């Protein structure tokens, strides 16, 4: 089979891609410039208010700020926790690294809503662990629900594997002779880490950062459940406005897509060889 024939195999994919991604995207762009009833264009009126007054509305600004804050903090914490995890795992001489890796992934198999609801229970002053321990005189009352900390803990626990996996992969396939070369040339273990190991694993970190940042930026379930609805995020505005103002929802979604594309574009600039996941 020559390359042209092989290329034809991608046709179904291209059809689906355009139907499910491009067309809706174009719809969103069009909708964002009108005032309509749902997706019906009867009595549609052209307007720029979605892109002007509404977008700079205080609640939207706060939501964008909150989303940024949650996603940024989460990504940084996940990096600080996930990198050492991946590093220790990759360097350990433990025979069955795969088992440990699977253990970090297994929580992903249960529904994240369920997990976060369970977490919410733990953050209440009357939680299951406290009920069990209080007869022993041990208090396990946190009462974190509704705080930013609770939301961030939830996001970190949800997205940790997305950092551990790409970083682990990069570290695992790293040529060990490079580390020996570094030590041979007079760099001690710490210097070798900062001069060789970390720069060479940076692509994995970048991939992980994006894979954590994006869903925690656009998602609303975790802030909703663990924040008791105290914090508006972009996702929650989209969710609540969906039923009565699809036009502004389109605008917000386009903003999200734009931010996401900007991030990926930046990464592809840094990651020229395209060796990491994206």
């Amino acid at each position, binding site marked *: 089979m020559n390359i042209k024939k092989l290329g034809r195999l991608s046709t179904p994919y291209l059809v689906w891609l355009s139907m499910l991604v491009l067309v809706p995207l174009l719809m969103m762009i069009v909708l964002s410039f009108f005032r309509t009833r749902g997706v019906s264009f009867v009595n549609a009126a052209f307007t720029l208010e979605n892109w002007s007054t509404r977008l700079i509305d205080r609640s939207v600004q706060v939501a964008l700020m909150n989303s940024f804050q949650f996603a940024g903090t989460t990504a940084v914490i996940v990096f600080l926790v996930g990198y050492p995890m991946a590093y220790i795992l990759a360097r350990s001489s433990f025979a069955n690294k795969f088992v440990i890796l699977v253990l970090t992934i297994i929580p992903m198999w249960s529904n994240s809503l369920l997990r976060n609801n369970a977490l919410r229970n733990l953050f209440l002053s009357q939680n299951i662990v406290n009920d069990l321990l209080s007869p022993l005189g041990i208090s396990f009352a946190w009462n974190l629900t509704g705080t930013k900390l609770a939301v961030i803990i939830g996001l970190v626990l949800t997205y940790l594997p997305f950092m551990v996996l790409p970083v682990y992969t990069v570290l695992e396939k790293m040529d060990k002779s490079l580390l*020996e070369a*570094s*030590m*041979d*040339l007079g760099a001690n273990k710490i210097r070798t880490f900062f001069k060789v190991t970390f720069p060479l694993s940076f692509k994995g970190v970048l991939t992980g950062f994006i894979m954590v940042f994006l869903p925690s930026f656009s998602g609303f379930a975790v802030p909703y459940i663990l924040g008791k609805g105290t914090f508006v995020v972009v996702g929650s505005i989209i969710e609540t406005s969906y039923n009565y103002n699809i036009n502004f929802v389109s605008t917000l979604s386009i903003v999200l897509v734009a931010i996401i594309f900007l991030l990926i574009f930046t990464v592809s600039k840094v990651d020229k060889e395209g060796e990491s996941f994206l």
Partner: protein
Amino acid sequence: MGRKLIDLKGITKLYDGEAVVDNIDLYVNENEFITLLGPSGCGKTTTLRMIGGFEKPDAGDIILNGVKVNDIPPYERPINTVFQRYALFPHLNVFDNIAFGLRNQKVPKEEIEERVTAALKLVSMPQYAYRKVTLLSGGQMQRIAIARAIVNRPKILLLDEPLAALDLKLRQNMQYELKEMQRKLGITFIYVTHDQEEALTMSDTIVVMNKGKIQQIGTPTGIYNEPKNRFVATFIGESNILTGTYVRPNVVSFMGVEFACVDTHFEPGETVDVVIRPEDLDLIDPEGARLTGIVTSSVFKGVHFELCAVVQDKEFIIHTYENRAVGTKVGLKVDAYEIHLMKVEQSEH
């Protein structure tokens, strides 16, 4: 040759309880080009890695300049390594790769600039300073790897099969360049290879290893002309090895015939291994020859022909400039000084 620089005393390294390096004793002098030669798995690379500090010996001492260095990590040893697959840092350009060691030593900026430029010149790649290392060819990467090591002015340079990945022509050129470089810099080179020709070309001293043990230490000519045992004789160059009996000083008997030889230090009646190099066998008229055989194959090798001749059911390899047709009867002659006798080792076979 200079004074003793590094001394390995009774070094043993075990992997899963099996000795990869088995109680070896070896010393290296200053300014020496020493080669550890042996088949893969003979322990030569492990020995090198112990000198470099990447592995710790399970027994024995490594003494460098009179100081025991067993527990000193690689980054504190005055030793640099050229790795088999070069191990250049892909995230740094050529200049930064070479400057890596100097920066670790906190050498001033101007001096780094100077020394890196000099090192690039030495490996004849001055114009490549700001090239990405990933864009270099194998031969160029090799040169940069060498420059990166010698720029630190180590006392000892370890080279782990550095030419194995290069093609034949390039390999031969690099052999001369390396030897030349070693002479010019006055650094001790410890070189590991499985290529006997490479070892013979470059080394001052060759250490032949097999199964974790040193078989023989000597100069290239010494090892070639007077192999100590069957292993060395077959591993270095081609050999005809026969079993013979030492009759009395200067006389040995094999294939039912007595030959004059130059060895004198065996017991009369002792069984010995007799080594005759293929180029030392001369073809003569079968009439009156002490050994006669029938040519069974003839292969043209460029400079010489490689003949196989069967003499009393034993196959001989002969290198000769004159061809003989297959099936021809030939006589063989060998001079006394070209017959080399070796003690028979009990452990062999």
